[in-house]
């Protein structure tokens, strides 16, 4: 009896003795992202996880270096000929992964692939980024002119991620294949294989104009669960992960095989206030809300010290930031006084909403601090889906305040945060629901309507002083992003959250 049972009992154990997979070869760099974008076609999605992959396979006209300054990429030089025309000189001798040379035709094709002149419906979700572009003209084989319908100061920002794709190749293989099996660019790595939701395997491209990257193989895995990503880091299955939250940093810092790299990023946190109705129709009440928040305590206790309080929503890294505008101090006493002056000596009940699940503790801390000065806050957490519904579809249902964080879609310009948050034009984002600051729309438009940067900077200073005074939101802080990196790899986090892995080197 026992004799036949024993082997059966051992079966599960036997299963477990299969040898584990090989450790990472030295010339391979493995990155884990939470997911893959729906396509490898760099123009047909607008997903951070896709952009991070695309930039290592495709070049744009401009590049941004680690100091976040523009650098030549496929364009060697550029200048504004007038308010609406930009000239770009193209790099010579650049080759696509399939061997075809880069031509001005490819550049024009890439733009028109997204703008689709003459078409009613645009298929690229990036159309909105460059909708100002009216025409792309080939002047000679190395020169193109980009013409916008009105002054478009964000053009260069948008062109830092605007991959140039091969016209002939796409016309041959079609959009579908290009986005899955036949993606071809001019970047440091070329596609080997994509297994959806598993891995994207890339191999270095010998003909890349910058030279060869340090790692021959680049593997981008999709690992949705953070705890699993961390375990992969500790066992060397993965060399790099991003968005490491504050509570996990000590563990990865002290592990013998990993280190962390943190850097301030564009993402700013704020609580948008509903200025259409009491109590936040009163300036003093909005200022009181700002004075009620101990931002330093939130940064230290809840963000692991990785944050910087901001005077407004304009991030220090963004063009137009004015460091002379100072943040609201933490002054609960004065907050109570202002609230009384605003007509609420006994405080007032308000509701605040948030759909930012990962920042729930911050939201709750803010709600408590508001309650402490008499803005008794009913804090409501939402799943992102229903929240969008609530905030934006049924106009004006969500009052009196909405917690938010905004990353500018990596555009290092004040416009990219001021317009969506505070401009009230009908096509706008949340500003149209909440914000009612006299003269603000006009100033935002003004800064948008010229490419004269010093003039824009002056206008943004004016705007920041205005919103610091009018306080259409509770201004909180900008956050950091943290990467965990294998000690075998040398790399540093970038302010634009890009994983530009050409800069990654093996550590000796």
């Amino acid at each position, binding site marked *: 009896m026992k004799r036949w049972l024993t082997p059966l*009992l051992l079966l599960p154990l036997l*299963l477990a003795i299969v040898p584990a997979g090989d450790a990472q070869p030295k010339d391979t760099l493995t990155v884990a992202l939470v997911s893959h974008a729906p396509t490898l076609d760099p123009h047909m999605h607008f997903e951070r996880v896709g952009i991070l992959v695309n930039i290592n396979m495709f070049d744009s006209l401009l590049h941004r270096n680690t100091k976040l300054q523009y650098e030549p990429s496929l364009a060697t030089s550029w200048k504004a000929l007038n308010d609406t025309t930009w000239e770009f000189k193209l790099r010579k001798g650049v080759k696509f992964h399939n061997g075809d040379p880069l031509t001005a035709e490819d550049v024009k094709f890439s733009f028109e692939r997204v703008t689709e002149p003459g078409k009613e419906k645009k298929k690229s979700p990036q159309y909105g980024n460059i909708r100002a572009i009216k025409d792309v003209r080939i002047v000679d084989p190395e020169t193109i002119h980009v013409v916008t319908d009105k002054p478009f100061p964000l053009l260069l920002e948008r062109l830092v991620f605007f991959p140039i794709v091969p016209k002939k190749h796409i016309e041959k293989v079609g959009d579908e294949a290009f986005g899955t099996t036949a993606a071809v660019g001019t970047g440091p790595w070329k596609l080997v294989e994509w297994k959806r939701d598993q891995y994207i395997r890339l191999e270095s491209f010998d003909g890349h104009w910058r030279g060869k990257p340090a790692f021959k193989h680049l593997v981008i895995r999709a690992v949705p669960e953070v705890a699993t990503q961390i375990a*992969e880091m500790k066992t060397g*299955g993965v060399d790099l992960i991003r968005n490491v939250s504050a509570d996990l940093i000590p563990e990865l810092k002290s592990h013998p095989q990993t280190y962390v790299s943190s850097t301030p990023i564009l993402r700013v946190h704020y609580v948008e206030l509903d200025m259409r109705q009491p109590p936040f129709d009163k300036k003093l009440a909005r200022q009181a809300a700002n004075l009620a928040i101990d931002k330093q305590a939130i940064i230290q206790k809840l963000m692991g010290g990785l944050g910087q309080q901001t005077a407004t929503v304009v991030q220090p890294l963004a063009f137009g930031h004015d460091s002379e505008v100072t943040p609201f101090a933490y002054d609960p006493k004065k907050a109570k006084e202002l609230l009384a002056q605003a007509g609420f000596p006994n405080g007032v009940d308000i509701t605040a909403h948030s759909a930012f699940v990962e920042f729930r503790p911050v939201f709750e801390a803010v709600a408590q601090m508001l309650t402490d000065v008499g803005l008794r806050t009913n804090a409501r957490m939402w799943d992102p889906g229903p929240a969008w519904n609530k905030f934006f579809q049924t106009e004006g249902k969500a009052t009196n305040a909405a917690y938010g964080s905004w990353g500018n879609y990596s555009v290092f310009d004040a416009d990219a945060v001021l317009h969506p948050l505070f401009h009230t034009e009908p096509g706008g984002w949340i500003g149209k629901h909440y914000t009612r600051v006299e003269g603000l729309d006009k100033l935002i438009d003004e800064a948008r309507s010229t490419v004269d940067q010093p003039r824009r900077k002056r206008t943004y200073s004016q705007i920041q002083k205005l919103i610091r005074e009018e306080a259409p939101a509770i201004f909180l802080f900008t956050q950091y992003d943290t990467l965990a990196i294998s000690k075998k790899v040398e790399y540093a986090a970038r302010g634009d959250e890009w994983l530009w892995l050409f800069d990654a080197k093996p550590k000796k």
Partner: protein
Amino acid sequence: MTAFVVRRLVRLVVVVIGVSLVTFAILHASGDPVALIMPEAPEADRVVLRATLGLHDPLPIQFARFVRNAATGNFGNSFFHRTPAFALVIERMPTTLLLTALSMALAMAIALPVGIYGAIRRGGAVDQVATGTVFLGQSMPVFWTGIMLILLFSVQWRMLPVSGWDSWASIVLPTLTLSTFTAPLLLRIVRSSMLDVVKLDYVRTARAKGVSEWLVILRHALKNAALPLVTVTGLQFGLLLGGAVITETVFAVPGVGRLIVGAIRQLDFPVVQAGVFMLAMIVVTVNFVVDLLYVYLNPQIRVR
């Protein structure tokens, strides 16, 4: 017999339609996918997209369209992937089925011998350890078990890869995780129904006839003890598929479960509907097979 099969088949269809209706209702109550697809877009662009996706029609019309298309295997295009949702689900089905089947097999391989042995040597060492483990196994959530197994086998002992689905080694941990979720229940069922059966007269008679002990257990006792086991196995299969949803996310397994989790996050209605529909189909089919097995195992049932 034919009437029986037909009746069960009708029930099968009703259940699948019911599941689809509930999924449909919950999904549409949960928000506007267009807002998630294009958060920064002006309202005008959204109206266009909503029309393209067929989201502007009244809900009953949307549901009718959904049922009509679903009947032909057409669940529409995924909002996110922009390819047919059904194909996405089918592409991932083998992975999930393999994981579920392996876990069920492993759970059985543990539950049967240990359960039988525990019932025969009631109160013995094996029985006591097994009963204790049952409580432990059942009280651990799959999510937690998975991470603990990763910590032990991958981080601590370096025996197995942490995640992925590209070698047999990477299949071990997800399978183990899922079977620790199912094995305890099966084990308990095997043990208790064996305990009920071994006391019965016909078993004693078989022994008295001089039939060898293991033949008594396997042929006489087990076949009768198997009825509740078969029922529970059928039900467990559904639970396993549910557990696979979490397990696949923890171990980065490219299965249907993970596809659905991602789709729910993105409010990708077609994919959620296609995925839930397929999983419901499988559960219902398994239960149908269980019903048939019943008839084989216990001819008395057929009469009703």
